[in-house]
């Protein structure tokens, strides 16, 4: 299972990568929206986790592009601040507030991939 992680915070990126690899996923980690879209086309991941607040291209924009290309790929919005009021977010399959405890994230990925 290929997981694409997008987050502008390198340490988080690394944490997620390591944790998810420990779970047995094939993890691709990128730190910008542009790279994310390029890599998405190349590797066609099974699931994507997206940070929202990123420089140059934000998570919502990336989500829009991904959904226009492959609407079936589940996307998890992972962010530091609860943006659920924002309209665009609801196009994603799930919404996880970042936490040092990754249980929720892992659970969500598992749930979405099992569907």
């Amino acid at each position, binding site marked *: 299972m290929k997981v694409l992680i997008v987050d502008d*915070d390198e*340490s*988080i990126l690394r*944490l*997620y990568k*390591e*944790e998810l690899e420990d779970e047995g996923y094939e993890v691709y980690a990128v730190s910008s929206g542009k790279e994310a879209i390029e890599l998405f086309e190349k590797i066609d991941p099974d699931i994507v986790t997206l940070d929202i*607040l990123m420089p140059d291209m934000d998570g919502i924009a990336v989500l829009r592009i991904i959904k226009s290309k492959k609407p079936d790929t589940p996307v998890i919005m992972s962010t*530091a*601040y*609860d943006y*659920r*009021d924002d309209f665009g977010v609801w196009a994603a399959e799930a919404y996880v*507030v*970042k*936490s*040092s*405890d*990754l249980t929720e994230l892992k659970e969500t990925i598992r749930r979405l991939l099992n569907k």
Partner: protein
Amino acid sequence: MRLRRKLLIFLIGFLGLAFISGIGFISLSFTLKEEIVILHTLNSFHKQDEGLKDAFISYISAVSRYMESGSPNLKTVIWKRGEDVRSILNEIERSRGSLETVQRIKREFRLLSEDVSRLLTLNPQDRSSVDLYGRILSIKKSIEDDIDRLHGESLRLIDSAIDKGRDIQRRIFINIIALFFGTLVVAILLLLMLRRSIDRPFRNLLDATERISRGELAYRFEPGEDEFGLLAKRFYEIIDRLRQKLQVSELLIDISRPSSAEESLRDFLREKVRRISQSLDLVCEVYILKKDGETFELVEYSGRGDGMPPVALLKYSSISFLKDSGILWTNDLEKHDELRDLYDGLHRSLIIAPLVFDAKLKGIILFRRRERDSFVKDDLYTAEVISHIIGAGIRNHELYSELHAGYERFRLLYEFGKSITLEVNIPSLLAKTSNELSRILGNNPVIIKIDVDGRSEIALSHPDSFSKEDLKSLEEGLPLDGPLSLKEDLFCFPLTGKGYRGFLAIRKPSITPEEIQLMEGFISFLLIDLDKAMAFEEIVKREREAEESRRRIEILCESVRGGIVTLDREFRILSINRFMEHWIPAPEGLIGRDAIDVFHDKAPICPHCVASATFETGEINFMSQKGIGFYSELTSYPVKNEMGEVREVIVFIQDISERVLYQEELIGLYREVMQTKEYLEGVIENTADAIVTTDLNGIVTSWNKGAERIYGYTAEEVLGRYLPFIPQGLHDIEREYTERIRRGEVLKDIETYRVRKDGTVIEVSLTLSPIKDAYGNVIGTSGISRDITEKKRYERELAKRNQELSRLFLISSAMRSTLELDRLLRMILTAVTMSDGLGFNRAILFLVDEERQVLKGAMGVGPSSPEEAWRVWSSLSMEKKTLEDLMREIETGPLRKDSLLDRLSLNIEIPLENDTVLTKAVKEKRIINVKDVREEPLSDPVLVEQLKTEAYAVVPLISRDKVIGLLWVDNLFNRKPITDDDIRFLTGFSNQVAQAIENARLFERVRLAESELENIFESISDMVYITTSDYTIKNINRAVLERLNKRCRDEGIDRVWRKEDVIGKKCYEVFHGMTRPYESCPHHKTVSEKKAFMEEFEDPYLKMTSFSSTSPLFDQSGEFLGTVHVVRDISELKRLRERLEAAERFAALGEVAAKVAHEIRNPLVSVGGFARRLEARLDGSLKEYASIITKEVMRLETILREILSFVRGMALSQEDTDINALLDEIVNLYREELRKRKIEIRRQYIKDLIIPVDSGRVREAVINILTNAIQAINMDGVITITTDKTDKEGVIIIKDNGPGIDERDLPNIFNPFYTTKPTGTGLGLSITKKIIEEHGGRIEVETKRGEGSSFIIYLPLKARQML
């Protein structure tokens, strides 16, 4: 047997007993008396015996003595004694009868006495005599024996008497014994009789009365035939009668018991009539007089079912007699024709009683009984009382209904009053009133018109309901007081109050007095509210004015071209104007800061340094300060309170760099002089002196180059000639010098004059020494001279300059010490004209009137004639005078106000558009010196004509690049030309003058501002009052009075406070209605802690929320004097502010939230995430460290989540939610926790509680409360969760039995960041509150210390309308 008979028997017995004992005692007494007589007789016998014996013996002894002496005298004695004996013997015989012994004695004595008689005839010495005497003695012997026998007989009689006494004693004893027993027997008999006939019936009677009095009214005993029996029978009769009365009384009490107000009159009567009928066993009927006043209507009837009353209606006329005669009764109706109507054929006895109240017959009450003669007088009385009670009952019912109607009116008034009480807008107030009044009075049209401030306000309840004619007639016929009916259907009420006049009218076919009352009530409310609205408008206006004044002051402060800083006693900056930018950047941010921190050693100026002296002395203080590139003058003005203490200091700061530069210029000048002097001295030192030698006659012998240069003569010209340079007149002195030289003296440093070759006189310093020959003789003079003319001139110059400088400093000091413009100007001009000032003859000050664009003479100083001039100048001198002397002189001296020149100059006005020297000086800002007016075409004609001036100078007074006036001077009297030097000094002086004028003008404006401030104090809407340290009020403003009077009005207290009532009273009396200081009052804290307090204060007395600012007042020694309070009613504001604050806080927090989230959460995620990974891979203590990091990060994340959740304003997504299920779900989440802590959950749910909520948010809210409850209990406890609902709301109650919430915490628990837990964020409950309020619900908390807390959530059953 009758009691009387019993008593008679008793009496007879008693009398018999007394008789018997009386007889006994009488007989005894007789016996005793007999005995006593015997004893008495015996006693006399004994005495007679003794007497006889004595008489006889003395007789015999007399005879014996005769025998011995033969004295014839004794014959008589003997005869007398013999008589004595005979008389005693006769006596004995008389008392004892002719006893034999006595007879014998008598006989013998007769013999004896015969012998004695014979003897007496004889001579005693005779023999015969002796014989006779012997016979006598023998007879005497026999007589003595007889006498003894007689005595013995007497004694025997005594013995028999004693025997008889004993007998009597025995008899008495027996008598007494018999009497005692007799009495005893009789007494016992009597007692037995008494007991039987009196005591027993009496006891029975007592017993009966006691039992009856205990309430056993029916108790009876069988009465006997005696009086007691009679008594008992009568007693029973009385009790029976009383029982009847009691029954009647009970009935009366019963029927007089007030009925409940709700009970109808008919119910009331039915109940009473039934009761009367039952208890008096009769038929009772009540008739009430109908409204027509003619007919009585049967309203209630009660009997034993035997027949109905004969009539249901009764004509008033048929019983009109009742009115006069009151109660009527008959015991045989058949006999009364006039009452035939009332006879029902059955009941013959009848009582009719009128129901009268308020002296009016309102009805009648009838009592009937079948039997003839069955009513007695008592019944009549009872009937009367009943009729009164029933009458009163009916009246009560009437009163109640009247009261109810009255209450209804009051309720309407109250509702109306309430509805308009907050209305301050006059049109809407009128509209409200007219509509409301119209509604209440049957929807009839109402119009209100008032004239306020020249405008008319009209309110109509129904449009077009009043025609123009109506209005016109209303206005013309406007009543002055009280309502007026204008037309048949038009009623008008006047409305008059302070500042308005108008009317209220209603169109209504008829109007009842109650309606008029109601309307008057409405109108009085309306008037009150109108007054209030007017007052409100007034207040709004005044506040606006105050605001404007404040703004004007601000503008003034800002526009002044000088810095203004206000400092309080702690040197905190209270205000600062924009001009301060000149010295310090961004001055507006400095308010509230410590001036020492801000300025001292940090800025080019320091207001604190100048203000501190003013605080200490209360005087104006000034100080020049030098900063980099600045010279500033700081002047501090005290702001004193009414006690004269300096509360604040206003510091004006002016940039005086220009002026200082001028002063520096002066100083520079001085230096220049000094340098010149030094230079010259150097020159003199270094130049070859004139060295001239002469012989003793003054013939020049040598002449050096120096001499040549100084004196102009060449050596050739003077050698061999007499000294050429000695001035005429000095030759004598020269000769003196020569003489002294001749004597060998050396003359050093003589200062004298010399004449040069060109004739000019120079001053020289001369040293003369003798020239001696080889023998020491003086042969000539050597003179070394040096030209000191220049030096002297400079020295004089220097002295003059010094004098000028000191004068200028003196003047400028004087100038700065006064701020009164007029005084200042006069001082300036005086300085200008004083001979040792600037020394001009006359001076006039012109000021530029900018509005009118003219130069106007402001003041003139100078003498009016040459004579006066000399006088003045000789008397006026600045030298050796103190500033005070100078000032006094200026005010009282010859140059005072109102001199001729002064008056002349005040009249001078020169338009600036004119082209003259003066206007030119203004326009070109330069000094003009007119040396001769005839040669100057632009000379001011006014001056030439009026002041006769011939030459003058004008100096513009420039302050901040603007000409504010001109200084005009001339020298008319001494004709001294005005020199450039004069001008130069005048210029320097004018700079200071301009500054001083500007200062004074500024001060004037400040003073104006101050008085404006005073007005503001009075007019500000905040309450301001000042109290002394013992709470006595010293001053208040109008707002205080208004507030106090408002309270009086609100509370209905008839009192109007005036300023003088309040001042001098204790503040706690006036503001809190207490007799000692009010602990919670901020003022009290200020008094006790001597610190300023600003706080919100709930005032229970004045009923408002106030923002109270109290500051302590101290005097110069730091003694606490009192306090100043500013109290603002913020009741309304508080509510608004609370809402606004909450909104602002959330908005602000929201903005930072996202940023915080990103900046903090991201690193936290990394730190925590990697720590977890470390924890999984490490062992031992390192693993523990990682675990600590993980835990701490989690804690931080929790806190962060709470904070973000609090500030995040998320839209609700409300869906119908089963609240019970939601609660169960939440409890389930905490199952483990609850089990661990042994907390029991009890649920009391109402069925089907479905509420549209955002279940996620509500879940969060409930969780917050639940976790609080769990933490409150900690271990072992019960949490009860209850759901319920009302019509509009669903209710969730979560109750714990923890320790409860501290009272101090209670007001704060919903405040964000308020927490009592060591690790809480304090957001839990505020989030909960926010969530509930977002749903349109509310949350309440009830708590009791030690018993736990209940949180009650109310959620509306209908979804909140989203805006």
